[in-house]
């Protein structure tokens, strides 16, 4: 089963002919993901790598290839509309890799996505991977291992790091998902934790947070109130000076909210063991399994 993606996923790649889009499409296909179509306006009718039909619009990809999920690799100024287009075409799961979509645009996009009943993951996220089955996004396939741990993270490469630690220790993953670090994201910790709690193939969850906002605190409450599966965590940004941005638009320490110390405390108070170093996640997991 895993969460959100799997064998049932019929993926359309928006921006398939771009530099990143074409590179990662090949990687996804190689991993076994069913990439059923690509979209680049003006390139409709072509075939990508002799295997994937390219359309001018997502709607065509849905009608003609039965796409039900989409991944977006288009430049920031077109990415908001790419999400709207996917939702408008009836795509159920939209994964937006692109970074740098204006916040004001994302607020409107999210409202539309919700009206369409679609699920958005990201933007500015690495996507998700079910080891051995399917990958959507840019997570490096060579570091994952099939198994029963769910991973959810606001970060990109830090997620890879954690996956790498688990895999190196022989601990496999059911699904790893990066939800993105932007202020406005489609799928949050709570959505993922609930999905992992409901997933038969997941035994425990690793949650990777960072400074800024209060999503980790909300997630911690949910873990205490709704989850029976064990959860362990990691928070990045202990050394971040207050008031300075650390790259992610979301990584702002505003007033009394959002410091790493607060988040660590929220995790601990709600039964989430917190690893000091990325490598300590392995021991923390072993302790709860």
């Amino acid at each position, binding site marked *: 089963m895993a969460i959100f993606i799997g064998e049932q996923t019929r993926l359309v790649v928006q921006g398939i002919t771009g530099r*990143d889009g074409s590179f990662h499409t090949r990687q996804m296909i190689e991993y076994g993901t069913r990439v059923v179509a690509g979209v680049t306006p003006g390139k409709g009718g072509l075939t990508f790598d002799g295997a994937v039909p390219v359309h001018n619009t997502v709607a065509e990809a849905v009608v003609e290839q039965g796409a039900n999920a989409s991944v977006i690799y288009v430049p920031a100024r077109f990415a908001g509309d790419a999400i709207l287009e996917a939702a408008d075409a009836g795509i159920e799961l939209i994964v937006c890799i692109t970074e740098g979509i204006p916040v004001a645009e994302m607020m409107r996009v999210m409202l539309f996505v919700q009206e369409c009943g679609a699920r958005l993951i990201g933007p500015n996220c690495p996507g998700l991977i079910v080891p051995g089955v399917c990958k959507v996004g840019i997570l490096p396939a060579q570091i994952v291992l099939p198994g029963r741990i769910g991973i959810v993270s606001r970060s990109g490469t830090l997620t890879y790091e954690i996956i790498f630690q688990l895999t190196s220790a022989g601990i496999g993953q059911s699904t790893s998902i990066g939800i993105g670090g932007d202020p406005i994201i489609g799928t949050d910790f709570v959505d993922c934790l609930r999905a992992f709690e409901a997933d038969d193939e997941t035994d425990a969850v690793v949650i990777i947070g960072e400074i800024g906002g209060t999503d980790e605190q909300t997630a911690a409450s949910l873990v205490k109130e709704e989850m029976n599966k064990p959860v362990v965590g990691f928070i990045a940004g202990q050394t971040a000076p207050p008031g300075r941005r650390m790259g992610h638009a979301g990584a702002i320490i505003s007033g009394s909210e959002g410091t790493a110390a607060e988040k660590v405390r929220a995790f601990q108070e709600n039964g989430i063991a917190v690893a000091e170093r990325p490598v300590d996640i392995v021991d923390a997991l072993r302790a709860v399994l």
Partner: protein
Amino acid sequence: MNIHEYQAREIFRSHGLPVPDSVLAESAEQAREAAARFGGTVVIKAQVHAGGRGKAGGVKLASDPAEAGKAAEAILGMEIKGLVVENVLVAAAVEIATEAYVGIVMDRTSQRPVMMVSPEGGVDIEEVAATKPEAIFKEAIDPRYGLMPHEATGLAYRLFSDPALAKQAARALAGLWSAYEGADATLAEVNPLVSTPEGEVLAIDAKMNIDDSSLFRQPEIEAMRDEGAEAPSEQRAREAGLSYIKLDGDVGCCVNGAGLAMATMDLVKYYGGSPANFLDIGGSSNPEKVVAALEIITEDPSVRSILFNIFGGITRCDDVANGIVEATGRLDLDVPITIRLTGTNQKEGVKILEGAGFEADTDMDRAVRRAVEVAS
């Protein structure tokens, strides 16, 4: 991006907020002239990207042009939170009957801009939030509909019971929303919004932060960027598409991804070291970025050890390796480099590095520990 008060005032005025006339002065002489033009008492305000200007002595009243010149002279060149004051704003002082706070801020939780108003203005709004939360009134704005007139009216009556004042305040709130939306702001604030004894509502301060991701469609605001207000290294990093923040330590960090960068800094500290910077080369694969990053790090004289921590995803290890080889060829480096490289195209990357005489580790913990050891 932060913009200065005088810039925010211009934007607010163009959206119909009642902003009194003011003049930007670069010298005491200009401030004197402005005060003479306004007549009566004026207020002189330091234009720096820092809160708490008043407490720091960056805001002064002057009752005549001579005094205004002196006040400007005192403020110009002053350092506030590490930033040197290069301009002052001169405005006619306003007689104040009441002071309110009005602001709009992007709220992550509701995923909407939230308008906040309080009749307890003129002081730090976070203090009001902490001590008297019932005096803050909020309205989440649905961006599809914008601030609706009745929302503005409802909030305006939270500030003023007098209909004449409330009507002016409602117009000011509509203008604030229009400015916030039009400028792609993440914060727009007037503190205080005052009423005068004559029954006028005036916005006598202005603050705006602009969403960096929107600057491509806000060329007029991008042009307001005050490069003097940034450290040269941070400016350089921005131009190269890097996120860079200078810190006080000695281990220069170059990482791909903000979360991994922070985790790397945390680990440097865990092993007793001290990070010299936060630096995220971002998600794309451009060797030039690596070159720029290495240049910026090595320009910091405190740096005694350089640590690369690259986990390839959309960033490819071979691109980063090429960047490192190119940059070290160009620069005359005498600081030791520790490289951790894994992920997408790892093999190719390691090969390139080894060909240039570098070692590359694949383990983050070990690499960080070594970089800290090298620095001490």
